[in-house]
């Protein structure tokens, strides 16, 4: 669609504009590169150090994705439980809310003490940090499912499991995908957090050692990499989302008619 294309171009232009503004403001206000380096600096560093950074990127991507996958699985399971059972709602919600209000920085050292440093605590942190948003959205989606839709299956004598599979979960997909966007960014944060505390590899470790050397542009290069990875995964989920929840966003199809 021509319309689609021009919107994409406009978006890309505005995003470039954002970085240009950053660059120009830094130059004009004379912001020290020790506080906030200019994008051009960061990109230069990125290109320069890329060969060294590459294995760390892979490591972080790996721990994040594994943790995220586990987190999604657990999140969906708990979310379904909470959405379906009143008791689970009363028990699991307060515990989860309490646990989520705790900064994960405080939890990572415990993981390290139990599992040693490195990949395992990073995966665990990425996992625990992303469970809650998924649980909340799945549970809300299930709780707000229109009874009329469930009645269609109930009248056929469907079991609760069948109703869940055929009505509850499909209906909850828009909620689920919304939570995935939040969860994936949190997973990155979690994995990196754990790496800064205890790991010899990963972007978190790079950023920590860079920041302890005041190599600020390398720190920001790390941040850029994280941002880019986050956006890349977001794009993947968006495409999936468009396929799966197209029925719920049909409004947009007609905005251009």
């Amino acid at each position, binding site marked *: 669609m021509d319309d689609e294309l021009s919107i994409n171009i406009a978006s890309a232009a505005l995003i470039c504009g954002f970085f240009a503004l950053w660059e120009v403001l830094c130059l004009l206000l004379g912001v020290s590169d020790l506080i906030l380096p200019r994008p051009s600096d960061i990109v230069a560093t990125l290109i320069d150090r890329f060969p*060294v950074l590459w294995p760390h990127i892979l490591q972080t991507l790996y721990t994040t994705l594994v943790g995220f996958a586990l987190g999604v699985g657990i999140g969906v399971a708990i979310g379904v439980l909470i959405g379906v059972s009143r008791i689970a709602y009363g028990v699991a919600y307060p515990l989860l809310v309490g646990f989520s209000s705790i900064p994960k920085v405080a939890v990572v050292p415990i993981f390290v*003490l139990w*599992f*040693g440093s490195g990949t395992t605590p990073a995966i665990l942190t990425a996992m625990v940090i992303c469970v809650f948003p998924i649980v909340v959205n799945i549970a809300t989606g299930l709780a707000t499912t229109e009874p009329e839709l469930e009645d269609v299956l109930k009248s056929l004598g469907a079991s609760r499991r069948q109703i869940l599979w055929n009505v509850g979960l499909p209906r909850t997909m828009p909620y689920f995908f919304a939570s995935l966007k939040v969860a994936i960014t949190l997973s990155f944060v979690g994995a990196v957090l754990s790496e800064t505390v205890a790991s010899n590899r990963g972007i978190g470790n790079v950023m920590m050692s860079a920041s*302890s050397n*005041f*190599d600020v542009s390398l720190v920001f290069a790390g941040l850029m990499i994280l941002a880019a990875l986050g956006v890349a995964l977001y794009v993947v989920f968006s495409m999936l989302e468009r396929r799966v929840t197209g029925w719920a966003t049909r409004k947009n199809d007609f905005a251009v008619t």
Partner: protein
Amino acid sequence: AQDLTPVRFTLGWKTQGSDAPFLLALSKGYFREEGLDVTIDQGEGSAATVTRIMGGAYDAGFGDINAIIQNAAARPGEAPVMVYQLWNRPPFAIVVPKSTGIETVADFEGRTLGGAQGTPTTRMWEVFAKRNGIDMSKVAIENMAPNLQEPMMIRGQIDGAFVFNITSWFNLLANRQDPAADYNWFSFEDYGMDLYSNGMMVSRAMLAEKPEVVAGLVRAVNRATLEVAQDQDAAVEAIVAFDNLVNVDIERQRLVFSLTNLMNAPEGATLGMGDLDDERLTRSIGIVAEGYGLERAPEASEIFDRSFLPPLEDRKLTVAIN
């Protein structure tokens, strides 16, 4: 390779030049020669080394003796034991920009100092103030993360900072400052607080169950330490082999700094590398107990065990910078 004993070892912080003894011993296979399969991980602070070992995740590590004292006081028989003292002089210092006009410790009054909570420098401030007749109530202390101290000092948000000189010196360099010309350094050792600091410590369990492993560790580290003092090129190579992200120039300088400013105490000539003076240790235990408000002052023997040290003639450190 099957009969190697696995040892989990934690550094005090991210890879730094001053870790060279351990990394060289690793890369040159000195541990292996002692029958040890050592895995080295980066750390979260030289005090956390103690917790990591007490928690059982690590068998040995490079960390702060003062943290051992602290834990030994509360949990006798659990805290790790120092078996090879590396930094015989304390890196603890207060650094102030010359532009603040602070020339003597008395000038601290009416100023704001920044400190990272829980670092020995910050914690010892009370004792420091008492010993040097400073009215503590007139000095404002602001808590902040270690890597914020220098930037905030440069921006004038604080007048000085409680630091480790080996860290802060290079932080200032990285911030394009001249640490020698533009800053005044109040080193704790010059103000009646000649504390010990980092060294290699091992867990109680390993000490009790595998003394031969401890002996091997100490031998290997001692050998590497002496070598590092002679050949920094090899040391830097070992560092890069462990972590290719480090800034080679800075870490080399940091290594030299540790050799010339921290490891060369006058007593080294008589005691040799790795050993320490029990009297001085007892004195410093007193300081720590006072500074941290400990319930009891542990015995020196609870903190340090010299029984694994090689003979004195094998521990003669001669520093040659190349």
